[in-house]
Every structure is written in structure tokens, then in C-alpha cells.
């Protein structure tokens, strides 16, 4: 039983990471109805940037965030204004195919630049530090950090969306992009800011991912899928729902791994497909 409880706790922690993958996706979908298939590869990009920064500046990965997050934010703004803004419109194919093409380009780019080797960011003592809850259960500080970071990011986003001018602009553009222009909002700029914010979160998530697990050029699609599954399981109605979705996914995966490691990811997919089959709006989403 201790093993099961431990698995659940671990799953909750990793769920925080999945939620962060998902929040970036949910944010840009909310503001501009864009689904970026390269999202997972951008998480991996953040991981590789973290790698380069830690290696050249000899920094602890968490300190490297000071560089990674702003770099990713700028990449996001540039990517939106330079590429994705040209695909926005009624047709759903251009953004889909362009982001898919971008995903393939990035994966092969990583392969060319960094080789196919597994990489990991070393966080030193932090990696093994843990907090003991009970005799059977202890929580690693790093996994706990993933969950806490997710909660802080969501709280900060809620604050941004509901207490600031920018957040008001995001909500208005999300409601009615045509009329939002009449408020003096330059949609192209607002979209860029939304993508910049999304990738800033991706930057944080990417570094945390790289500390907690190995990554390689082909890791992107699976992260995209985890984020996507968290969004669908939790529903699009609120970011807290997305957190719940991420946690549920993490727990399902973690518990399945105690039965057989080979079942871990598969169980998550199956859980996602079941939620899709019986409650497509998500467990915490509003119907219709």
C-alpha cells in the first residue's frame, strides 16, 4: 500500500509539470484559438537553451531560468508575429500544417545541433533533497517544486488576466477579436504578447523537465501530447481545471508504472481517450 500511496504522491507532483505544459497551450488557444503542434518541441528548445546556458555560464539550472525564460518569451513574440500571425484566419489548415512543419524542423534541428544523445540538467544537491511526509512517503524537493511552480504560475496568470490591463486585453481579444480592434488594440501585437507569455511559461517548464528527466531531440511530441491530454481531461474552462487534469494524468501514469513501467504512458493515453469518449468537455469543463 505504501508503494501505491507513494506512486500517487509522485504522480501529483509530476502532474504539476504536465499542467505547466498544458497552460501554455490553453493560454494561446484561449486568446487566439491557435493550437501549436510545435509546443512540445518548444519545451525541448527551452531545455536545450538551459543546457547551453548552464554549460557556458556554469550556472545551476534554476539560476539559468533568469536567461531561459526571457529568451523564450522573446522567441514566442517573434514566432507569433513572424510566422503564426500569417496563418491566422478562418481556415484551420495553415496554422496546423505550419506548426507541424515547424515541429519537424525543430526536431531535426536539435538532432543536427546536439546529436541524438539523452541529456539532462544537473541541479546538484537539489536533485536528491527530499522532504519526508511519512515513513513510506517522502517527496523530492524537485518534484515538489514542479507542483508549487504550477500553482504559482496559475495564480499569477489569474492575477494577470483579471487584475491588469493586459489581461483585460487578452480576454477581450479572446471574446471578440474584431471588436477588440476598436478598443485600440493591435491584435497582431496582443497575439505576440500572448505567445511570448506562453513560451515564458514553457521556458520554466522546459528547465524543470530537463532537471527531472532525460530529454532528446525527439522528446517534443510526447510533451505536447501530455499537455494536450491534461487540457482535455481537465477541461478548458479554467486553469485550475487544467492543473487538475495534469494531476490526474500524472497519477494515472504513476500508478500504472507500479504495475509495469511499459504501461506508464499508455495508461495516460487510454485515460485521455476514455475522458474524450464519455465527457469530451473535460472533467471540470462546461458542457457545450
Amino acid at each position, binding site marked *: 500500500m505504501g508503494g501505491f500511496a507513494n506512486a500517487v504522491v509522485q504522480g501529483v507532483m509530476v502532474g504539476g509539470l504536465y499542467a505547466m505544459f498544458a497552460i501554455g497551450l490553453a493560454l494561446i488557444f484561449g486568446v487566439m484559438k491557435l493550437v501549436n503542434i510545435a509546443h512540445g518541441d518548444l519545451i525541448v528548445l527551452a531545455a536545450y537553451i538551459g543546457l547551453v546556458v548552464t554549460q557556458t555560464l556554469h550556472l545551476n539550472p534554476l539560476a539559468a531560468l533568469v536567461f531561459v525564460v526571457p529568451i523564450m518569451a522573446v522567441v514566442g513574440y517573434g514566432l507569433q508575429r513572424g510566422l503564426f500571425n500569417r496563418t491566422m484566419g478562418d481556415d484551420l489548415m495553415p496554422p496546423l500544417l505550419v506548426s507541424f512543419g515547424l515541429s519537424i524542423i525543430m526536431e531535426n534541428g536539435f538532432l543536427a545541433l546536439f546529436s541524438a544523445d539523452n541529456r539532462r540538467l544537473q541541479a546538484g544537491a537539489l536533485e536528491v533533497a527530499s522532504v519526508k511526509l511519512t515513513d513510506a512517503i517522502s517527496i523530492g524537493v524537485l518534484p515538489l517544486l514542479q507542483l508549487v511552480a504550477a500553482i504559482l504560475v496559475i495564480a499569477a496568470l489569474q492575477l494577470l488576466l483579471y487584475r491588469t490591463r493586459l489581461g*483585460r486585453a487578452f*480576454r477581450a481579444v*479572446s*471574446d*471578440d477579436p474584431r471588436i477588440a*480592434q*476598436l*478598443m*485600440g*488594440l493591435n491584435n497582431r501585437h496582443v497575439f505576440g504578447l500572448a505567445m511570448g507569455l506562453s513560451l515564458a511559461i514553457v521556458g520554466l517548464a522546459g528547465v524543470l523537465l530537463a532537471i527531472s528527466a532525460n530529454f532528446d531531440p525527439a522528446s517534443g511530441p510526447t510533451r505536447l501530447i501530455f499537455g494536450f491530454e491534461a487540457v482535455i481531461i481537465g477541461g478548458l474552462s479554467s486553469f485550475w481545471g487544467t492543473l487538475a487534469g495534469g494531476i490526474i494524468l500524472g497519477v494515472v501514469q504513476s500508478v500504472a508504472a507500479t504495475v509495469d513501467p511499459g504501461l506508464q504512458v499508455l495508461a495516460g493515453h487510454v485515460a485521455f481517450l476514455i475522458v474524450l469518449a464519455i465527457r469530451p468537455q473535460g472533467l471540470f469543463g462546461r458542457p457545450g
Partner: protein
Amino acid sequence: MPEAPLLSVTALEAFYGDFQALYGVDVEVGRGRIVAVIGANGAGKSTLLNTLVGLNPAPREAIRFAGEAIGGEPPYKIVKRGIALVPEGRRLFPSLSVEENLLIGAQVGRPGPWTLERVFKLFPILSERRRLPSMSLSGGQQQMVAVGRALMSNPMLLLCDELSLGLAPIVVKEIYAYIRRIVAEGVSAVIVEQDISQALKIADHVYCMLEGRVALSGPAATVTREAIAAAYFGV
């Protein structure tokens, strides 16, 4: 010497893809004036307003505002110049409260007398409901929010698209009384209306559109019922 008009539209054409909606429209709005644009459905009234505010493309010189050619500029620039639209059907932002809908109207940052407090003074009933979701208000109240939202950008010219749509006559009267007060404070207005009597009551000048063209133009005080009927129905 007559003062130059605030807005002057010359030979304006507008297209939706291959479909032509405006065929060479000429309109003028003087400072502090109310101009009414009437016409049947599909005559091009809304298209005219949408084009003025930049939601449809237009040739540069076709629209002159406050002495400058503004045709073809994007909406966010045109709003900054001082033209605000109260869209057909209100089009409030559902995710925003009443107060937030008004605040976002000010996002363009034009200086002027219209502040949140002033709008609430004009529409006291909104002040009581400021934190409510905008869509929970009655039609008339939503219309007030839409007008207030446009006012928050401190426009020189207010474009109103079918204010009376879906509202009871008594509410329509109330809304237009507010418009008169707003114009009295120095804002010019273009009123697009299906309610002809209301339009004639409030306007200084009236245009009647038919199938994308101006069929009638004249002072509201002297234009006759017959002339309007002829222009409206194209007989």
C-alpha cells in the same frame, strides 16, 4: 467662411470579396453635428460605418477626418485618431464585467473629458451594476454600456450602428436622449437607424442609402416624407 467638415467621405467603394457593397458614397459630417444614415436592410449602412472605422479596406483619400486622409488605416489607429463605433448588436465582451467593458474602451488612451466616473454619472443605472457580467444586463442597459465604452475613447466622432435594434420604443427614446446630451458636450455623431422617425428627430442632416448608393441627402428639418419614401424604396 464655412468650417471644414470633421469627416468627409468621397466616392467610397467597398467590397466583401467579389461582392460590391458600396458604390461611390459621398458623406459629410460637420463638427458638433448629428448625421443620420437611413435605408433598408442591405443598403450598405453598416458597411459604411465599418469602413469608416477601418474594419473594411478603403482607398486613402476616400475618407478624410480632421483634415487628414485616413482611408485604409487599421482600426486601432483610427480609434486613436478619434473615431469610435458603437457596433450593431452592441457586441459587448462577455468575459468582461460592465466596468471592465468601459475600461477597455479607454485602453486606446486618448485624453479627454470622458472618464469612468463621468460615464457612470451619465448612466447612473450602470454604476449600480458595474461588477456584473456585461451580458446579464437588459438590452437597453447593454446599449448604454456599448455607448459608454465608445465614449471612453474620447472620440471626436461617434458612429452608432442601429442603436434601436431589439429595444422597446421607450428605451430607444431614452438612449437617444443620452445621445443628444453627448453631442451637446462636443462629440459629433453618425447615426445609422432603421427607426426613421427617431433618426429624423435627432439628426441635423440625413442621408438615405439604397443598394450601396446615397439616394437622398438633405437637412432633416426640410426633407419630405415623399422624398424619403422614394429614396428608401427606390421608386
